[in-house]
């Protein structure tokens, strides 16, 4: 196949992939978009095999088949709540593959000029950082590693010096040219320190800031691919890698804006806290909960601050807005939330969901969990859309969200959440909060709603139990 034909085919595939992404902008067409992208990918693989005359290389097919089977099997096994970890791991695999491509190209002397040596070094570094960074992020999300930011002595110094060593090893790779010994040593050095760098920089990011870290790693995995594409002069790889890089960057930006925190602070693990909505004050607690996949034991279930009967209030409500947070995911209370929604709708109430952009452990996490239990996606409203509607609603029901509904974000200057856009539940006529306890959320800022006397009902304890009780009370009240 001549280069010209290949480039033309590539441009078709790139357009196909871009169309696939464009289709994702409407829920209706999104499935088609995904299929289109996957078909383009399959074609890209076949064209590559044909172009390099390696169609008949059986061992390559075996590897492809093994990856395919494992990937599909894993995809159908995984639970939706574990999606953040899965995405993190897949990012890491992509990064690892790009790093290996770069190292083979370097060590097999497939690199011809200075440009491909430099890009080879960079791809190696970025790919390895993506791998170890993703492993640490995945470990934190799975609860194997501590959720709290881990600080080492002279952490920043360690990070900057390893970065220096990486840069120098990349330069050394570039000038070493064809001297295999130096080249091999430098490649090894670059891999070791990039790996260490990825670990050092992810380990000090808090569990609640993971949505941002995952988006960033997503971006890096794309960039690694694009640079690996430059090493082997493949336009398709460069282009698609660039698109993925842009996507990750955009999501990172959205998340940072939603938290009102600069990316730098998050990566530096500043203010040992995130701004996650959850009923848990202690992040170590959540570690065990995530790993065991179990709902936490209620400590003091709904015994205090219950002034009016929440079930009665809900039964009479005409407009209800439910605000889910990570606490709902931890308690696995989606199913109960759905049942409650059905009950309320039976009684003629209008139920909507208010989704804060950073609720959960990855962008869009809450939407996926709620859609899994058959809640129509039309009911899931974004923050800007739902905020004006709080003042006309009868009840705002907060399930395991804390910082994202904390009105202190508007007033408490100097706290980590100050200036963060929040869901304005305080405007609702009545607020019912189903949280685990009264501790402040990850941001460590006390929520004034907890102490408000009027119009607030606190239901403490495991969200699943609490909502089950609510449902049965509403039923018996019939």
């Amino acid at each position, binding site marked *: 196949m001549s280069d010209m034909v290949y480039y033309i085919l590539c441009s078709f595939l790139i357009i196909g992939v871009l169309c696939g992404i464009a289709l994702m902008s409407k829920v209706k067409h999104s*499935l088609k978009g995904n299929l289109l992208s996957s078909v383009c990918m399959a074609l890209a693989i076949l064209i590559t095999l044909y172009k390099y005359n390696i169609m008949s290389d059986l061992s390559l097919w075996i590897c492809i088949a093994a990856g395919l089977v494992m990937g599909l099997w894993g995809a159908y096994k995984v639970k939706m709540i574990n999606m953040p970890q899965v995405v993190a791991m897949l990012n890491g695999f992509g990064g690892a593959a790009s790093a290996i491509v770069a190292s083979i190209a370097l060590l097999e002397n497939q690199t011809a000029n200075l440009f491909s040596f430099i890009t080879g070094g960079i791809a190696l570094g970025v790919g390895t950082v993506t791998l170890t960074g993703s492993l640490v992020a995945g470990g934190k999300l799975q609860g194997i590693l501590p959720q709290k930011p881990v600080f080492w002595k002279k952490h920043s110094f360690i990070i900057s010096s390893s970065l220096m060593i990486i840069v120098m090893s990349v330069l050394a790779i570039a000038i070493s040219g064809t001297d295999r010994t130096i080249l091999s040593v430098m490649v090894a050095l670059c891999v070791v320190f990039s790996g260490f760098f990825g670990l050092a920089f992810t380990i000090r990011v808090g569990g609640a800031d993971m949505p941002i870290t995952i988006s960033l790693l997503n971006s890096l995995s794309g960039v690694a691919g694009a640079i690996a594409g430059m090493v082997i002069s493949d336009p398709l790889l460069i282009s698609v890698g*660039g698109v993925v890089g842009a996507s990750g960057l*955009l999501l990172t930006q959205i998340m940072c804006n939603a938290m009102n925190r600069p990316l730098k602070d998050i990566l530096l693990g500043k203010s040992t806290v995130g701004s996650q909505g959850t009923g848990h004050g202690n992040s170590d607690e959540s570690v065990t909960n995530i790993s065991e996949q179990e709902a936490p034991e209620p400590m003091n279930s709904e015994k205090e601050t219950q002034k009016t009967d929440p079930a009665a209030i809900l039964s009479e409500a005409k407009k209800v807005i439910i605000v889910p947070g990570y606490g709902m995911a931890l308690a696995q209370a989606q199913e109960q939330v759905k049942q409650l929604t059905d009950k309320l709708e039976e009684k003629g109430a209008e139920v909507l969901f208010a989704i804060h952009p950073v609720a959960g452990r990855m962008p869009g996490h809450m939407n996926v969990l709620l859609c899994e239990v058959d809640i129509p996606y039309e009911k899931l409203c974004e923050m800007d859309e739902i905020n004006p509607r709080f003042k006309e609603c009868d009840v705002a029901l907060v399930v395991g969200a804390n910082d994202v509904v904390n009105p202190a974000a508007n007033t408490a200057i100097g706290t980590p959440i100050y200036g963060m856009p929040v869901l304005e539940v305080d405007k609702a006529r009545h607020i019912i909060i189903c949280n685990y306890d009264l501790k402040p959320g990850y941001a460590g800022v006390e929520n004034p709603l907890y102490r408000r006397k009027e119009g607030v009902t606190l239901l403490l304890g495991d969200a699943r139990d609490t909502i089950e009780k609510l449902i049965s009370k509403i039923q018996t009240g019939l």
Partner: protein
Amino acid sequence: MSPFFMIVIFVISTIVGYKLIRNVPSLLHTPLMSGMNALSGITIIGALSATGAAVRTGNRLFGFLAIFLAMLNVSGGFAVTHRMLGMFRQKEAQNE
């Protein structure tokens, strides 16, 4: 292909991708991310060509690993995205 041309491709793709992705509603951000994840597995074509051309056994073995990981990335990513988008679609059918 000249380095200059490659960088141009990279920059243009990044900009076009950014513009397109900005239209994706936040509702679909998780599937978007896993879909992008699958796309980052495009590095499999690099893995295939590099491994196919590799002569040293060690490098070839490494290449096999790269192909496996990239394919895992591709198939896992697309399948998981498909599964999630399916959940979104279902409701639409019910409502109609």
